[in-house]
């Protein structure tokens, strides 16, 4: 079986080790930990952090507006709870910010001739690998904020079910579209 070279759209850096079927000795099997992983867009982190910030800010604003408005009286227990609520929201916002600050740059993906891999996680790091052969359909997901930033998420659906959807978040639209096209042009997917 020959592995096609029908992917001029990708530089060699993006295409990792090519699988050939002729060599089957164990040392020649492509290794997952030798992937040339590529980081997702740095804008993804910016979006997440600003989102965490603005949600925390909005919540505090709503709470303060309720606390200090003069249209109706607030029950006493809620008034005493107010500083704690603000504090809690601040802490959660900070945790989310810190998490995204450190975790988002660790989200990396790699494309090989036959599969797509994604590495993610700060404390619990997972490396998942989705063979393109098993992809049933591909979707580009773009929320309103991602659209503003020119980012998209690439979702690959396999027969493994909804909980095991393979998703690469926060990559540039052009990259996502090229990846999608690569998967669609892959002869195993297009042959169906």
């Amino acid at each position, binding site marked *: *079986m020959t592995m096609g070279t029908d992917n001029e759209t990708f530089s060699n850096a993006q295409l990792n080790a090519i*699988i050939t*079927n002729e060599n*089957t000795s164990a040392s020649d*099997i*492509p*290794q*997952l*930990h030798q992937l040339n992983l590529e980081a997702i867009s740095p804008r993804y982190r910016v979006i997440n952090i600003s989102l965490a910030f603005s949600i925390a800010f909005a919540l505090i604003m709503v709470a303060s507006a309720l606390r200090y408005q003069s249209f109706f009286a607030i029950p006493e227990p809620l008034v005493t709870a107010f500083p704690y609520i603000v504090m809690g929201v601040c802490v959660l916002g900070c945790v989310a910010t810190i998490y995204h600050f450190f975790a988002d740059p660790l989200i990396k993906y790699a494309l090989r001739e*036959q*599969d797509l891999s994604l590495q993610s*996680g700060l*404390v*619990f*790091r*997972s*490396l*998942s*690998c*989705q*063979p393109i*052969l*098993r992809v049933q359909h591909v979707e580009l997901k773009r929320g309103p904020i991602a659209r503003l930033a020119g980012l998209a998420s690439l979702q690959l659906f*396999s*027969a*493994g*079910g*909804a*909980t*095991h959807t*393979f998703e690469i978040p926060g990559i540039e639209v052009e990259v996502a579209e090229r990846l999608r096209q690569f998967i669609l042009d892959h002869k*195993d997917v297009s042959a169906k």
Partner: protein
Amino acid sequence: MASPEVDTAKPSESSAGSQTVKVDTGEDWRRLSPIAIAYFTLRSIKNMAQGAIYAVPAIAVTANINDSIQSPITLLSIAALVIIFFSSGVVSFFMYRFRVNNQHVEIHSGVFSRSYTNLPFWRIQNVKIELPFYYRPFGFALVVLDTAGSAGEEAKIVAVPLAYAHALRKQVLAEHQEHGHQENGYQENGHQERETSAHVNDSGHVNNRAHANNSSQACVDGDQSERYSETNEDGETILNRRSITDIVIHGITNNRVWIFLGAAAPFYDNAFGYLSEWLAEKGLQLNQLVGEQTIAWWQFGLYAFVMLMMAMAVVALISIGGALFTFYDYTLSRQHDRYIRRSGLLNKQEVSMRASRIQVISAKQDWLDRILKRVNLYFEQNASIGHSTKELMSPNRLIVPSVTEDEADELSQEVMPQSKIRRSDYQSISKRFILHWVIAALAIPFVVGTGIGIYTEHLDITAGVTLVSAILLGIITLRWWRWGVVSDDKYIYVRRGRIGIDYLCFEPYKVQQVVVKQSVFMKRRKLATVQFVLASGAISVPFLPEEYANKLANNVLFEVESKRKSWM
């Protein structure tokens, strides 16, 4: 596919003893057998009952049943309901037409919302033949045609003679095989052999159909064993039968209570009412027992114990009943490239599964099974289609209840040749698995619990918390002890469980996705968790040596990507 047809009998006449059944109905639309009226009537009653089940308590409360049950109004309304249901059944019967023409099944149905279904044979994934108990004396069958899509997309031909049902199934499946044969040209040798043998069988189609017809008559006579020996010549091989003893054992070792309890849910209140009345008659009053201090604690304990034992016995009996209800006269057979399971006491049900669709074999042994040396064997296929896998009758899962360990080996080797599930060379997981769960889940509740106990000087709390923690620790240790993975040239085996043991076996090329997980701490200790996502669900093995996990993941990926075989 132009299969040989012998044009002698119409389906409606076939049960009268003609030798062949013509599947194709031609251009004409066909009505069902009138027995379908019973089916439609019962279906509408069932639908109403399901809709009204929540109204039952309300009605029971508002109407004093004993008073009103004899009143003419009640009788009249019951009669009216019966007439309404019956006439809706009749109307449904007249509105239902079907034809099988040119490799398509077409169905017109519905009274107010008419629906038209057109199913080409090659889109039908599965043909189930069901025999509701009121069909059986007359030799009719319900044919359920499954498509690959969701559960709602199945089509039912409600009442046709059994012989016609068998002939239709044969033709649809033959078409499917032919189609599948073209698609799966790249199947490996083992499968090709099987498929070619299937085609040899196909050539004897006309004869087979005659047998199918005979078999229906055998069934009408109620002689099950004769039926199965007949179908043997039908290209069907019986792989396993379950005797009543086996099913009783299954009922004891597995909790099949819910088969009845689920259906009986609306009557719980009444049942408890009657029960306490009955007990009161016998001079035993629950309220007094609990409320008064007149009896010694050991007496109370004895009562409680006896009650518990009685309850357990009742539960076991109900469970045996449930097992008999679903698994009576169980047979597992192979026809060409499919496995077919037939069982049922009142409603005979049939589930069939293509061999190539089976993703995982799992052999499950609960603690009672281990004592009795029995195994429940499951063949699991795609879980994302339709029904939940938990259902016993679900087409995603083929269960062989309570086989012996040797039979389990034999059957799993039948489905996955050369597989060896019970083996001693499982790669065990690291002891850090225990440490991980102790720190992650056990430590904080234990410290908090004992701390509260000591602080409030209630040492019984401390003792209780310690006991529960010790039990949990034991379970975690058992889980560590059981968990293991091993692979050979063809398969990957996983062993897991707590008190019982599950053995899983799958072919690596059917994997959909591979995940290797590692926490910072695991990385330091060179450990990793590996997870294989299959169409039937994910299987993971935690805390393996990093090198082993990576090798396993790489090999599986290579297998998927180099063999390029279909997972279906």
